[in-house]
């Protein structure tokens, strides 16, 4: 069995790539995909620690994260569809009505 550090390190790298995606991409849908990547990176750390401590709780938490992510994706994508219908764009730089 590999040291848990490998898995946690990979999880950190994937999380940072997701955060980078949120920062550099300007398309709402791609930003949303990057958030999903961050959630999955956290899930990997959960499963790795569940394996290390030999407890089911980590995997149960991953299950809950998946349920919450499903709800989040449904609501988020319907919000994106609503924004696109109102503004005809999904580029965050064009959605600046609240800018002072």
């Amino acid at each position, binding site marked *: *069995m*590999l*040291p*848990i*550090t490998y*898995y946690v*390190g*990979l999880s*950190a790298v*994937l999380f940072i*790539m*997701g*955060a*980078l*995606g949120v*920062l*550099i991409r*300007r*398309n709402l*849908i*791609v930003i949303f*995909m*990057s958030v*999903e*990547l961050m959630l*999955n990176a956290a*899930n*990997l750390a959960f*499963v*790795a620690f569940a*394996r*290390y401590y*030999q407890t*089911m*709780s980590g*995997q*149960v938490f*991953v*299950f*809950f994260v*998946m*349920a*919450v*992510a*499903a709800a*989040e*994706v*449904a*609501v988020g*994508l*319907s*919000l*994106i*569809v*609503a924004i*696109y*219908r*109102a503004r005809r764009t*999904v580029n965050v*730089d064009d959605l600046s009505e609240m800018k002072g």
Partner: protein
Amino acid sequence: MTLDVILFFILALIAVASAAGMLLSKNAVHAALFLVVNFATLAVFYLILGGPFISMAQITVYTGAIMVLFLFVIMLLGVEKLRGEDKFPWQIPTAVVLAVALLIEAGYFLFFRRVPVDMSGTASLPETFGGPQAIGSTLFTQYALPVEIAGVLLLVAMVGVIVMTKWNEE
């Protein structure tokens, strides 16, 4: 042991490369497909880490339901071509600097602050670890209330989505 290491690094390479592909692709459909590859790789990791049920749930929920929903919305809106130009030229360098700082911080805490924990002593797992039966009995005894709350949350999300789409059609 060496086989484990080789397998881990091949899978990690696929995961990181597909995440990078998602970050860099100019087409939203390609980004979604890269993310599907990434999620499938994570499902294999879950299988290695002794979570067969979570692994299958990852395949069905993430690569199945969630990414299909993403692709559906991309094609519904017809926004697969992404614009290249940026309004703020300093944005990407700043983001990269921040990400590298975060990576250095994470690496410091992972490799220098704490002694790396070794899993060699925990090689053997119980036969049923991570199976549907073990997950189910934990879910419905120890975590019964969170299961109910998650159910209510999914119901509220469903109702919310329906209300938002209806409201837009008026």
